């Protein structure tokens, strides 16, 4: 596994000390990571995976530490990509220190991961985060007692208030330097399974590939770990595997027994260190949840929060977008025009309409993205995201989706780009992929702009009805596609619905700010490049060779595709309008204005209404709604799926769906006499 690509190369002589940050979800890992590294961090993906990988550096007393943030996982048994990434990193890269972050208010449960980490060959420091919350909830924890019981360093912390971070760095320093005697108490397996574990270890002795620890592999075999089982099946001879398999088959309940054993061990370790609150005390979280997770009030609260998000987008985002468009992008275009005066027309066009147009569309996405990311980040950080998923879960299950898919999809009404990027909150890869595939079917504001212009032209007073009908149609197609893709490609694999509802806490502006910053940066860097390239290419196709759209290469493509369009009553001009909508949905109207020689005003509306029958108009609107999304959305689909195959599938699927739906509506309308 290549994980060394971003080591600071400046000081090759002294290898930086490698620190891995591990912890269960919702223990404040990002906050601690951000406190330790500040802006010295790099966000990417784990090689070959769609799981986010954060890495950063920290300098303390002249020593440089390289910090790698491992994915948040509840255990280290191979249930998902995250668990495999976390344990493979520790086993293969053997970090100098593993900081295990635990939630002091959920001590027993969050030490479960620590119990697993202690079996791996890397020294562990336990960072006891959220001490303030634990105190509020009535726990009294003595870190020194816990330290003595576990045999590893325990650092009490309240990362949200920057308490304990300094001590953590000092302890990392102590553990990383030679001379520190690391003698942890390792969890032992329950007596009733000790013998069988020894038997397995005996059977696999000498056959375990380096650098996997033999006793750990034996334990994972007993737990029925998928990856390790496959690995050992390959390493052992058939006869050897048969022997191991016989033992395992006789103990296939061991997974639960091993887990119980770990919790029993944890119970013994913390008994002396923790005083529990009196039972029956009702905390803030439960009081808030009476409303937030209620089947009726919960939906109302969710609707309110989403309404607020959209209001913010329109109140702040849209004016900012306009300002960027006219002042910044427009200003830049003016500047370049003056500067390029006297240059050939094609060059002026390339720079101003092609390049600056592309930059402009990347830039004008930013206000919306910032607002949406900030809203989602705040909901996640407060702990509300899980509640939103909880109240929407039943509904989303109808489409084979998880409750967590609701929020990103809903954001799609504003813009499909943050919808696709927002799917990062979904842990299950399958559910995330399905959500990404469905997101372009949510009608975004840009599509609605086109509908808002064209439907009054064709349908007069019935325009509102047609617009709502189109939205409804999109959502029905979305639901049907969800069911279809889930049933066929994913074969109805349904992830069990088990999800933690973290305690509510006050959001940390720094955590949210950094999240917004990183997401926007990666959008500009990765998706931005693709958007720019495609914009320039489509622009070039639309003006070459003669400089006019109606004689351009694009118009040739439109004419070539006309037979397909004719099935819905389209001529080549409507096909060209659809093709250019790939850059931005609003382009359709501008291009139609050019092709019909009327500009974009009421003249165009009247001309279109006179040229095409209502059936064609309706089909055009339907295709426009379901057509492949704009290039920005396609670019982020590529960025998030990390796969051209799935990006291609998405585009192909939407082409097919829009074409079938367009034809269906056209012929139904014809039959209905339109």
């Amino acid at each position, binding site marked *: 596994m290549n994980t060394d690509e971003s080591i600071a190369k400046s000081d090759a002589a002294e290898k930086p000390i490698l620190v891995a940050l591990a912890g269960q979800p919702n223990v404040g890992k990002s906050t601690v990571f951000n406190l330790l590294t500040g802006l010295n961090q790099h966000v990417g993906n784990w090689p070959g995976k769609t799981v986010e990988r954060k890495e950063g550096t920290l300098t303390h007393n002249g020593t440089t530490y390289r910090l790698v943030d491992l994915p948040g*996982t*509840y*255990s280290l*048994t191979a*249930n998902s990509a995250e668990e495999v990434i976390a344990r493979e990193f520790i086993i293969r890269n053997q970090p100098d220190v593993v900081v295990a972050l635990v939630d002091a*208010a*959920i*001590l*027993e*449960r969050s030490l*479960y991961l620590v119990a697993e980490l202690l079996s791996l060959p890397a020294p562990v420091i336990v960072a006891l985060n959220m001490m303030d919350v634990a105190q509020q*909830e009535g726990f009294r924890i003595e870190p020194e007692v816990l330290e003595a019981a576990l045999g590893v360093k325990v650092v009490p912390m309240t990362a949200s208030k920057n308490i304990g971070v300094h001590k953590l760095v000092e302890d990392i320093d102590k553990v990383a330097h030679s001379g520190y005697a690391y003698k942890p108490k390792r969890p032992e397996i329950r007596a009733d399974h000790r013998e069988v574990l020894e038997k397995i270890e005996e059977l696999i002795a000498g056959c375990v590939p380096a650098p996997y620890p033999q006793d750990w592999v034996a334990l994972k075999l007993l737990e*029925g770990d*998928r990856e390790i089982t496959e690995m050992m*099946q390959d390493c052992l001879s058939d006869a050897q595997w048969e022997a191991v*398999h016989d033992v*395992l*088959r006789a103990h*296939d*309940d061991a*997974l*639960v*027994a091993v*887990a*119980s054993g770990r*919790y*029993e061990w944890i119970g013994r370790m913390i008994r002396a260190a923790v005083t529990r609150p009196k039972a029956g005390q009702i905390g803030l*979280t*439960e009081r808030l*949840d009476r409303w937030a*997770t209620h*089947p009726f009030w919960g939906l109302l609260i969710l609707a309110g929060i989403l309404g607020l998000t959209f209001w913010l987008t329109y109140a702040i985002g849209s004016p900012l977008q306009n300002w960027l468009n006219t002042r910044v992008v427009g200003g830049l275009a003016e500047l370049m025009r003056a500067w390029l005066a006297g240059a050939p027309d094609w060059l002026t066009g390339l720079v101003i309409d092609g390049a600056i147009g592309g930059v402009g569309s990347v830039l004008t996405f930013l206000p919306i993205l910032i607002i949406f990311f900030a809203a989602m980040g705040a909901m996640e950080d407060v702990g509300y995201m*899980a509640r939103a998923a*909880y109240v929407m*879960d*039943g509904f989303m299950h109808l489409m084979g989706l998880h409750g967590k898919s609701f929020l990103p999809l809903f954001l799609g009404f504003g813009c499909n780009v943050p919808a696709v990027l927002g799917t990062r909150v979904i842990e299950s890869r399958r559910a995330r992929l399905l959500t990404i595939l469905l997101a372009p079917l949510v009608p975004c504001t840009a599509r609605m702009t086109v509908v808002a212009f064209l439907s009054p032209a064709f349908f007069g007073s019935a325009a509102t009805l047609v617009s709502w009908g189109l939205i409804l149609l999109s959502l029905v197609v979305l639901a049907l596609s969800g069911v279809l893709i889930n049933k066929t490609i994913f074969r109805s694999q349904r992830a*069990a*619905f*088990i*999800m*933690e*509802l*973290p*305690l509510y806490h006050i959001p940390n502006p720094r955590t949210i700010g950094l999240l917004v910053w990183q997401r926007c940066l990666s959008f500009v860097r990765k998706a931005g490049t693709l958007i720019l390239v495609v914009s320039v290419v489509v622009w070039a196709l639309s003006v070459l060779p003669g400089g006019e759209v109606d004689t351009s290469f694009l118009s040739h493509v439109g004419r070539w595709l006309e037979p397909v369009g004719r099935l819905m009553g389209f001529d080549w001009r409507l096909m060209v309008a659809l093709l250019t909508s790939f850059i931005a949905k609003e382009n359709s109207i501008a291009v139609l204005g050019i092709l019909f020689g009327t500009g974009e005003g009421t003249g165009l509306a009247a001309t279109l209404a006179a040229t095409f029958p209502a059936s064609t108009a309706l089909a055009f609107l339907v295709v426009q709604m379901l057509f492949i999304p704009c290039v920005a959305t396609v670019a982020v689909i590529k960025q998030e799926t990390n796969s051209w195959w799935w990006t291609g599938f998405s585009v192909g699927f939407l082409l097919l769906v829009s074409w079938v739906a367009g034809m269906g509506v056209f012929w139904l309308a014809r039959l209905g006499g339109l």
Partner: protein
Amino acid sequence: MRNRWNRHQSATVTAPGNDVVPLSALRVGERGVVVEMNGGRGMLGRMTGLGFTPGAEVTIVQNFGRGPLIALVRDAHVALGRREARRLYVRRRAG
């Protein structure tokens, strides 16, 4: 051989008796001790990671009789689908 993963596993501490009910049958505020967990390996793996093991005490925080429910286990609030909650048997505790 791969069938091993698809086969449903169960871990029983005590044979289900009269006071042993699925978790989904407990009302808000009622407590129970987990005695049996059924499900595939993947689901059991996630359940144990979230704190459900035989012997763990569970308190119901929300249960409307249909749809998902919320349980408190090892000091953590965990939402469970009804299907998942039906496969988890608990011994009802008084008080």
